[in-house]
C-alpha cells in the first residue's frame, strides 16, 4: 500500500511540474490536483484499451463470417466505430450526461448539444478539479457506445446491406444508447431508484444485444441456415485464428472497460480497487471459457472452440455489472454461469430460427441480464430494482430498435437479394474481396 502511494505521488508531481512553475509560492499539493491528474490518466489509458475492443470485435466477426463476406464485415466495423465517435460528439455525450440540463428530468437530456473540451493549457486554478478532464471523460465514454454498435454488427453479419446498417448505428449511438444510458450513468431515474450496473452489463451489453435481437428478427436468418423442417445447418467461419485473436483483444480491452469504470484513481483505495477489478475481470473470463470448454466436451463429445471463445466473452459480460465487490471465487462462479448460459442459449436461439452469426445475443444480452442480476450476491442492490432496470432497458431498446429497423426496411430495404447473399457481399456490394486469389484471371 505504501509503495503504491509513493508511485502515485511521484507520477502526480511529474505531471504537475508546469503548473508548479507558474505558481511557486502556493504549489498545489497532491490532495488538490492528484485525483484530477490520476483519474484523467485512468480515463485515457482505459479508453485506449476499450478503443482496442473495436479491433477485437472486427477480428472476431471477420473470423466467424465466411471469406466472401470479410471485406464487408471490416467495412461495417470501421464505419460503425467512426460514426459512433462523431455521433457521440454531436449529440450523444451531453444527452447521456445532462448535468443540470435535463429536458425531462431523469428521462431525457438535451438534444443537439455538442461536446466542448476544456480550454488549451488549463491551469490548476481554472480546472474543475473534482473529477477529470472533459476530453478524457468524453473519449472514455464514447468508446463504450462504439462497443454497443459492434455487438449489433456481429449478429446481423452476412446478409444486411451496408448503408441501412450504418443508418441504424447513427440512431443507436446518437440517440438510443445515450437516452437509456442517461437513466443510469447520467444520474437519471434508474440511478435514483438504486439500480446498480458498474460498467454496463445492462447499459452497454444488453442494449447492444436487444438492438441486435430486434435486427435479427426483422432481417431473418441467412439463406441455408435453417431447413424447412427446422433442421439447423452450421455455417462455419472462415478463420478461427482471427476469431481467437479477436476474443483475446476483447479480453484485454475489458480491463479498460471495467477498470476504467471505477471512475477515479486519485487515492490508495481507488488504485487498489482498479487492480481488484482487473483480477476479478480476468477470473470471470477464464471461468466462462473453461466452463464452455468442458460443457461442449461433455455435451457434444468434442470441445467447441467458437463456443469457448463465446464463453470467455460471456464471463466478461457477466462480471461487468459488478467487477469490484466479488471475491476471486465470486468472480469465478459468476463468470462460469455466463459460460453455461452461452452453451445453452446458442442452440435455443437456433430453435427460434433467430440467426446470430457470432453469438452476440447469448453473450451480450443473456449473460448481460445474468450479470445484472448477479450484483445482488456481492454488491449493494435489490433483486426488484435490478429486474426493473433490466426490463426498462429491454423494453425501450427492443421496441425502439424494432421501429427503427422496420422504418429503414420500408424506406430502403435492409437485406441483400438472394444472388448477392450467395455470391458474397464482398464482390456484389463492394467489388472487393478480402482474400483475392484469381482476380486478374
Amino acid at each position, binding site marked *: 500500500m505504501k509503495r503504491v502511494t509513493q508511485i502515485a505521488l511521484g507520477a502526480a508531481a511529474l505531471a504537475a511540474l508546469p503548473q508548479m512553475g507558474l505558481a511557486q509560492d502556493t504549489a498545489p499539493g497532491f490532495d488538490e490536483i492528484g485525483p484530477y491528474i490520476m483519474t484523467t490518466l485512468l480515463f485515457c489509458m482505459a479508453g485506449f484499451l476499450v478503443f482496442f475492443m473495436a479491433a477485437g470485435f472486427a477480428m472476431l466477426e471477420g473470423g466467424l463470417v465466411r471469406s466472401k463476406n470479410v471485406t464487408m464485415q471490416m467495412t461495417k466495423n470501421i464505419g460503425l466505430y467512426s460514426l459512433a465517435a462523431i455521433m457521440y460528439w454531436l449529440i450523444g455525450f451531453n444527452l447521456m450526461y445532462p448535468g443540470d440540463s435535463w429536458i425531462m428530468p431523469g428521462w431525457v437530456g438535451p438534444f443537439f448539444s455538442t461536446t466542448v473540451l476544456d480550454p488549451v493549457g488549463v491551469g490548476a486554478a481554472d480546472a474543475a478539479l473534482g473529477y477529470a478532464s472533459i476530453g478524457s471523460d468524453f473519449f472514455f465514454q464514447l468508446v463504450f457506445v462504439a462497443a454497443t454498435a459492434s455487438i449489433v454488427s456481429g449478429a446481423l453479419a452476412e446478409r444486411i446491406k451496408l448503408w441501412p446498417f450504418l443508418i441504424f448505428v447513427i440512431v443507436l449511438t446518437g440517440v438510443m444508447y445515450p437516452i437509456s444510458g442517461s437513466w443510469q450513468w447520467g444520474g437519471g431515474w434508474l440511478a435514483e431508484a438504486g439500480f446498480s450496473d458498474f460498467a454496463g452489463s445492462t447499459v452497454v451489453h444488453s442494449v447492444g444485444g436487444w438492438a441486435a435481437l430486434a435486427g435479427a428478427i426483422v432481417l431473418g436468418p441467412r439463406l*441455408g441456415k435453417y431447413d424447412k423442417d427446422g433442421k439447423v445447418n452450421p455455417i462455419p467461419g472462415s478463420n478461427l485464428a482471427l476469431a481467437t485473436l479477436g476474443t483475446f483483444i476483447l479480453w484485454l480491452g475489458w480491463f479498460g472497460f471495467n477498470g476504467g469504470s471505477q471512475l477515479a484513481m486519485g487515492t490508495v483505495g481507488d488504485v487498489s480497487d482498479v487492480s481488484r477489478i482487473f483480477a476479478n475481470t480476468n477470473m470471470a473470463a477464464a471461468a466462462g471459457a473453461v466452463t464452455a470448454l468442458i460443457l461442449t466436451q461433455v455435451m457434444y463429445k468434442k470441445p467447441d472452440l467458437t463456443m469457448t471463445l463465446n464463453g470467455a466473452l460471456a464471463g466478461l459480460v457477466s462480471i461487468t455489472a459488478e467487477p469490484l465487490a466479488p471475491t476471486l471465487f465470486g468472480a469465478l462462479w459468476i463468470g462460469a454461469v455466463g459460460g453455461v448460459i452461452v452453451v445453452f442459449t446458442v442452440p435455443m436461439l437456433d430453435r427460434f430460427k433467430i440467426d446470430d452469426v457470432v453469438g452476440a445475443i447469448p453473450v451480450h444480452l443473456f449473460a448481460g441480464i445474468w450479470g445484472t442480476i448477479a450484483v445482488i450476491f456481492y454488491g449493494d442492490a435489490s433483486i426488484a430494482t435490478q429486474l426493473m432496470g433490466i426490463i426498462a432497458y429491454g423494453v425501450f431498446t427492443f421496441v425502439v430498435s424494432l421501429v427503427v429497423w422496420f422504418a429503414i426496411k420500408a424506406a430502403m430495404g435492409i437485406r441483400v437479394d*438472394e*444472388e448477392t*447473399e*450467395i*455470391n458474397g457481399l464482398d*464482390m456484389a456490394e463492394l*467489388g*472487393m474481396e478480402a482474400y483475392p486469389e*484469381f*482476380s*486478374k*484471371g
Partner: protein
Amino acid sequence: MKLVIATIKPFKLEEVREALTDLGVSGMMVTEIKGFGAQSGHTEVYRGAEYAVNFVPKIKLEIAVADAIADDVVETVAKTARTGKIGDGKIFVLELQHAMRVRTGDVNESAL
C-alpha cells in the same frame, strides 16, 4: 449413357440439386469454376483504379445419367437454373462410353 455438363449461377446450386434429386438423379460432381461466355465480365474499382473482372464465378455440374432420363435432366437443369438474365450458363451433353463403380466393379447403368 450421357454425361451432362452444366454451368450455372452459384446461387442456383441448391435449387438444381433438389430438383435433380426429385428426378431420381443419385449423384453429381460439383466444381467451383470461373469462366466467361456471353456475360464477358465487368469492371470493378480497387483504391480508385479500375480493373476488369474477365472471369465470372460459376458452378460446374457433371452428371452421368441413363439415356432414358437424359432429356429430363437437361430440361430440369435449364428450368431451375434459369433467371432470364445474362450469365445463366450452358448445358453440354456428351455420349458416355463406359462407367464403373469402384467399390463393386458394377459397370455402365448399374454403376450410375
